[in-house]
């Protein structure tokens, strides 16, 4: 299991402090083993930065009617609009600069994705820990619900909820949380049951440490690796699902165009050859999802001791 001795036999005599392998260094080194994952991480960082600073770096505020000129509608990429600057990615049917719309759309998509992933992690982790510690009937009931929930197609659950609740950022997030909590609950419960049996937990119980401290300081930290992997995967799932729902006209309202809604808006013009209104937001979505998944995949490999060579 531990590779601690592996390096020792070939190591030289002088171990400078800088050469000591800390868990973080080890993690970074393992992660960087895949060049693709590093590229994914760089791309993801860039996307997050763009989303965060969208209002500062976008050429225009696509929501501000004063900045958007309907006369500039459907300009192909590279044309100069009425405001005097080049629309690198063209404009849409209302004259909005696509580059700006994409920056703002990314911001919205990531916000929805990350918020719902965090919320479902909070809900799911709590339920999973409770199930693991309560055991017995509570545990089997919770896990039965989790099984049923996970086996149902996500889009069906989202459909039922959004039909009932209507469109909106908050409602979409709620629907995503309802869909995703179960994955966290199952992951945490599984990990917690394994960790619970380990010696440090028994030692903690013998020392009469308070239960909540055991739960949060010890258990949770040891459940972190699988949680982190699930977290990245589910962020990607949340972003993709939100885009799908918005594309179907069930997710975000028209006033708040995420990437999915931008793609849907452009869809009508796609067959007519005005590809840019749909394709560029599509590429942005693609890059976002692929980069999150690349990072998630590598995390899984790094944390999975079975795949270690």
């Amino acid at each position, binding site marked *: 299991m531990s590779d601690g001795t*592996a390096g020792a*036999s*070939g190591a030289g005599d002088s171990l400078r402090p800088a050469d000591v392998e800390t868990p973080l260094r080890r993690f970074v080194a393992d992660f960087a083993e895949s060049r693709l994952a590093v590229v994914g991480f760089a791309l993801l960082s860039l996307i997050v930065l763009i989303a965060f600073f969208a209002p500062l770096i976008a050429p225009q505020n696509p929501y501000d009617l004063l900045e958007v000129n309907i006369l500039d509608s459907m300009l192909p990429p590279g044309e100069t609009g009425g405001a005097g600057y080049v629309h690198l990615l063209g404009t849409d049917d209302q004259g909005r600069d696509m580059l700006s719309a994409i920056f703002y759309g990314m911001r919205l998509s990531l916000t929805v994705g990350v918020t719902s992933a965090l919320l479902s992690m909070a809900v799911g982790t709590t339920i999973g820990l409770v199930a693991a510690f309560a055991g017995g009937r509570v545990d089997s009931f919770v896990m039965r619900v989790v099984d049923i929930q996970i086996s149902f197609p996500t889009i069906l659950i989202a459909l039922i909820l959004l039909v009932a609740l209507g469109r909106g950022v908050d409602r979409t997030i709620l629907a995503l949380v309802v869909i995703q909590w179960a994955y966290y609950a199952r992951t945490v419960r599984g990990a917690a049951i394994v960790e619970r049996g380990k010696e440090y937990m028994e030692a903690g119980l013998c020392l009469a440490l308070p239960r909540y401290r055991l739960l949060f300081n010890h258990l949770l930290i040891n459940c972190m690796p699988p949680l982190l992997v699930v977290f990245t995967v589910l962020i990607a799932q949340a972003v993709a699902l939100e885009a799908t729902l918005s594309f179907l006209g069930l997710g975000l309202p028209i006033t708040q165009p995420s990437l999915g809604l931008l793609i849907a808006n452009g869809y009508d013009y796609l067959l007519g050859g005005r590809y840019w209104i749909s394709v560029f937001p599509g590429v942005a979505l693609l890059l976002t999802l692929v980069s999150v998944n690349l990072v998630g995949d590598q995390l899984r490999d790094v944390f999975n001791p079975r795949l270690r*060579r």
Partner: protein
Amino acid sequence: MAGRQSSPILEVERLRTHFMTRAGIVKAVDDVSFAISAGEIMGLVGESGSGKSITGLSIMRLIDVPGRIVGGRIRFRGEDLAAAPEQRMRALRGSRIAMVFQDPLMTLNPLLRVGTQMAEAITAHNREVSRTEARARSRDALGRVGIPAPEERLDAFPHQLSGGMRQRVAIATAILNEPDLIIADEPTTALDVTIQAQILHEIRKLCRQTSTAMIWITHDFAVIAGLAGSISVMYAGRIVEQGHLDDILDRPLHPYTRGLIRSVPSRNRRGRPLHQIQGSPPNLLALPGGCAFRDRCPHTDDVCNAEPDLELVRAEQAARCFHPQLEALA
């Protein structure tokens, strides 16, 4: 040491099997030579990771990428297996050379009946054999390895049999085509001691009856002690000592062999602490130059920074060591 009896059935010469991993080349088997005659049982002894299983798989030519046989010859009845085409190897596997593996719980396909898995070993090499005949031969083989009610066992699924039973099934499958050579990769390690003894007894009997040669791979001198005629001890992909079983048990030359033998519990040393070899097996990716056992050896000096060769120290007993220990074990 070879050539004492009739001409050997298998001669391995300077076999080298390497694994090209992302982290570097692992020389799992490096310059290994030995020979076995018909009816002889040779023990191949070493710690896990010493290359003994890879040696067995190399003879079967069952090395998968990233591993490859990069050098040497495997002469089986005069034919070099290292250079034989895959087609030829398939004809030899299971018919002239059979192999039995370590984990009794994993050695049979869980989805197929025992009878199916045995019969296919016959029909793969002889299409003319009818189903009933293959079944009858399978049943006989089960009987020969001491399985009661063999007819019923043929229709059983592996999970319905105990670990010992499954390992007997594997051995029965190996002897179905009366091979010239059986490679047994620690087949009794996972079994409890009484069953282990029974199986060892039956195997010895079978080899004597059919004059089948056998390579018995193990990490445990206690298992090999009553079984083998000759011994090759492997360490870090190389043979470090070679000779007759009795010679090696009484007067092991290499410090590593001595350590292995002294770590076996024994009646005449009762009450004394069991010996253990210091340190752990070396990382094959970062083998230091010179003697690979240097770091764990109590007799190391500057000479050991050079590479030792496997040299005859006594008649028919060779060791790869600059400081062979000549006195008998206490």
